[in-house]
């Protein structure tokens, strides 16, 4: 682990030059995989994450089926080589927890009642990890679900907020995550409905309220990026040739 920086914010700029309310650069590619029913590749700062969706499909073993709705399954996994020290393949306690709350983040938006007895499987593979893989994974999963044509109330958009140098900031990068004072990953559906919320670190009640409000701003920005990716993919305008990924600077998305 690197050393803790003396300051995280100098003259209103963070270590990577962002403002406190600015997202890292985001690059989205829809349908990169053809076996899956839907898929999405996302580069979020230095994170590289692939999401795929299969379903609705038959659920085995049968005793796990729900007679009245589809079962959403969510598997977050880090590739062995996605971080500095190799990860032993297979589930860890961390990945099991992230998978559980990731699943919970989508239950509300997916119209599970349409597909009783089936499974809707969401797979997240972290290929390169910086910080914020669980929220970036949720964003990719949301688009992969849309790409698979799964009926939903709307997209889920996620980002983390945190506190460094005493200030509430949006979308923590690695150093801010490691040495910062708090980390609050949040996911929201339309209308600011919170479908995912965790928190680590130390915040006062008022700081936390400020953080939640900034998270709302962040999720709105993410939503615009997601929406634009879908439009460009599914409108005829989308250039199939050459570089087919959508790279967004935040300025573009904000317009």
């Amino acid at each position, binding site marked *: *682990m690197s050393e803790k920086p003396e300051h995280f914010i100098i003259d209103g700029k963070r270590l990577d030059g962002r403002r406190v309310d600015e997202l890292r650069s985001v690059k989205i590619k829809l349908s990169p995989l053809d076996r899956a029913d839907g898929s999405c590749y996302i580069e979020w700062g230095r994170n590289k994450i692939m999401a795929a969706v299969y379903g609705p499909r038959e659920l085995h073993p049968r005793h796990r089926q729900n007679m009245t709705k589809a079962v959403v399954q969510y598997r977050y996994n880090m590739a062995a080589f996605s971080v500095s*020290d190799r990860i032993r393949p297979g589930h860890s*306690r*961390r990945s*099991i*927890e992230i*998978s*559980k*709350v990731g699943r*919970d983040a989508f*239950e*509300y938006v997916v119209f599970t009642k349409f597909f009783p007895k089936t499974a809707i499987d969401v797979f997240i593979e972290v290929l390169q990890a910086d910080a914020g893989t669980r929220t970036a994974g949720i964003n990719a999963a949301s688009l992969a679900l849309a790409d698979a044509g799964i009926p939903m109330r709307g997209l889920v958009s996620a980002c983390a907020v945190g506190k460094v140098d005493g200030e509430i900031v949006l979308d923590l990068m690695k150093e801010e995550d490691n040495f910062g004072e708090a980390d*609050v990953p949040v996911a*929201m*559906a339309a209308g*600011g*409905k*919170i*479908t*995912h*919320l*965790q*928190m*680590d*670190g*130390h*915040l*006062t*009640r008022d700081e*936390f*309220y400020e953080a*939640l*409000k900034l998270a*709302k701003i962040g999720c709105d920005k993410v939503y615009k990026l997601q929406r634009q990716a879908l439009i460009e993919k599914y409108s005829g305008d989308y250039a199939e040739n050459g570089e087919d990924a959508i790279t967004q600077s935040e300025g573009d998305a904000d317009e």
Partner: protein
Amino acid sequence: MSDDVMAEIHRDYLFNLVLKGERDDGRAFDEFRDISIETGVAGMAEGSALVTLGDTQILVGIKIQPGEPFPDTPDVGVIITNAELIPMASPEYEAGPPREGAIEIARVVDRGIRESKAIDLEKLCMIEGEKVWIIFIDIHVLNNGGNIIDAASIGSIAALLNTTLPAERYGLGEDSPLPVRDIPIAITAIEFGGELILDPSLEEGKLAGTVYTVITNSDNGISGMQKSGVEPLTIDQVMRVVDMAGTAAAKIREKFLEV
């Protein structure tokens, strides 16, 4: 099948109660069941606490032994938290390695202890990069009467406050109390029919659309949160739970002066 029908009728009954602002056992929405904390009950452990929260009974035992630090944090002690939802505690629990639910409980309790900096981990380093104290927090659920997370959180910090560093046994100096400097308390609310209810009983927990836990410290600061369950929360609902949790935790923290 008739079990299911009975369960549904009971759910409707509880739901209608909540709409009238009432709970099955007469509690207010922000009212906890009786809590008792008995420490030192597991005599082979370095610290222990039996927490009774309504019908819920949880025994937390602390074991401590010397070991190696993690490579990326060579100068601090190690905390390992584990929860066992043993089949004794509920007809739904099965034997075998911890599942999702048990792992989440252990990780949320761990988060509260760790992020509140309740344990002074620097003081648990003996030789940097080589030898530190390893604290095992083992949460043993004996009877699941609902709201396991809060009972486990209360039991864990109670057991830690009761813990002795067993230095003599390992020829590493004199025994001393574990350096604990805060009392993080997890408070869990469920959302149900738009209402927010603290300390859900087992039956209430089954109704919950969402389970939301807030961990606060002695300074009323927040050091951990976890939302799970399928229903969303609004920012207002979240902040209401934060406020309810601060008040409830402060009351429970007073218990620790009695122990």
